């Protein structure tokens, strides 16, 4: 079964086609990268998956559950780390995680919340109000909130934007571990070296369409074959985006 499936998915905002007939399947256990320039449609795609945005046509599924028709099951199986650094200023870290757990109908989840906080280095911040945390710590809480209901599919929408090297390293270590333990990870990022190191397969979006979809190794091979040198993902990305522009 696919962890995530987009079937002929389109999203229009008036005349603007934010997503144009997307067909994509991400298998269980994959570490998948979703790349593209600003405005390519990455966040719209994730928003539809999360139920924050409704498709104009087509379907999105999480572990076989339609995100519109069977939204409860789909949302229980999905953890989203949003791009924006958002938080509720009324509560501390532990309360934030307990409420998030409660929204999913999970009670007595303290042991799991303690474990997540431990792995994300939040234990000593548990009783701190969200307003008192640094940007990096707030980002960690966002990751913790996405994991609090134990979802098998985790989507990280530019999780390392504007965070320091230490957090990036610890976050990737943690997420890689989740992937090794069987979780499906979908990552969008502008840091292409991160995608190159972490993702087994990558899709590149431009103007709402998938312009490349392959394993990371095969994508890197495109540049290597062409220029007879070891290219990196940035070279591939630039090449694919320019090819598409010129076509």
């Amino acid at each position, binding site marked *: 079964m696919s962890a995530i499936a987009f079937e002929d998915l389109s999203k229009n905002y008036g005349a603007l086609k934010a997503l144009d007939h997307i067909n994509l399947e991400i298998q269980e256990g994959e570490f998948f990268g979703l790349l593209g320039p600003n405005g390519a449609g990455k966040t719209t795609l994730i928003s539809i998956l999360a139920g924050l945005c409704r498709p104009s046509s087509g379907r999105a599924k999480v572990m076989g559950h339609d995100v519109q028709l069977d939204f409860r099951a789909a*949302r229980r199986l999905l953890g989203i780390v949003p791009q924006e650094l958002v938080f*509720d200023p009324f509560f501390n870290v532990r309360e934030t995680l307990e409420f998030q757990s409660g*929204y999913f109908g999970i009670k007595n989840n303290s042991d799991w919340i303690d474990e997540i906080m431990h792995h994300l280095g939040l234990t000593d911040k548990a009783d701190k109000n969200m307003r008192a945390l640094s940007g990096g710590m707030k980002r960690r809480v966002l990751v913790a909130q996405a994991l609090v209901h134990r979802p098998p599919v985790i989507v990280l929408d530019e999780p390392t934007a504007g965070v320091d090297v230490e957090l990036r390293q610890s976050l990737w270590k943690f997420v890689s571990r989740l992937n090794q333990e069987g979780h499906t990870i979908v990552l969008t990022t502008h840091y292409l070296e991160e995608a190159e190191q972490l993702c087994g397969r990558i899709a590149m979006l431009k103007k709402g369409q998938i312009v490349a979809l392959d394993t990371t190794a095969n994508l890197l091979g495109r540049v290597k074959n062409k220029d007879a040198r070891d290219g990196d993902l940035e070279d591939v990305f630039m090449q694919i985006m320019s090819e598409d522009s010129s076509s």
Partner: protein
Amino acid sequence: MIPQQSFTVASGFFALFYKEVKRFWRVSFQTVAAPVLTAILYLMIFGHVLEDHVKVYDAISYTAFLIPGLVMMSLLQNSFANTSSSIIQSKITGNLIFVLLAPLSHIEFFSAYVLAAMVRGLVVGLGVFLATCWFTSIHFEYPLWILIFALLSSGVLGALGLIGGIWAEKFDQLAAFQNFFIMPATMLSGVFYSIHTLPAVWQSISHFNPFFYMIDGFRFGFFGVSDVSPWFSVTVVGVFFMLVAAIALRMLASGYKLRH
């Protein structure tokens, strides 16, 4: 590390309801104490100035007449404020996403927010009553009517607050909704007077204000007298609740201004 995914059958409603109650309670100085103080000031000023000049019902002092009106006005305004301020703040700061990502139905969303608004309205109303009942002697002729109108009216304003919070895209728009609709409707609903003291044309206009029936019915529970029958009032308020609840539920189900 993450244990086997297990589905739970519990509803997220309870957590959302509890969070909304905890949110206003955490700033209770602003959300509870301040409206109680405002009501006391109203009572001291209007009660003192008008006590010997206005007689609305025989055998009922003006101060006694005023207290249920002030209780209900505070209850209405704070029920509205709870949902509307919570939603607009969450929308503008972006943290509403945490509720929208959860497997909550539009009915659970509506119930949690409106019930929390009712709790705040009732707490403030009770606070106003306890702070003002020392000024005169107050009786409860029909306590059940008091309870029915308090519950129903706080539900109406909680649902209206939800509509206002979802509709407004900035604080300015919500303030307009509050200052140009909620505030005049509550102030002109008979808090400070009986509509029988108004000119005929204003009496007729008052009958189109659903807030008038909330206060009139609520006051009937205290004194056993009212401008219109409590049965008629409860019907009007009940129908109004169903109307605003239907609008709010429709907005939530369609994702109006929440899910694009």
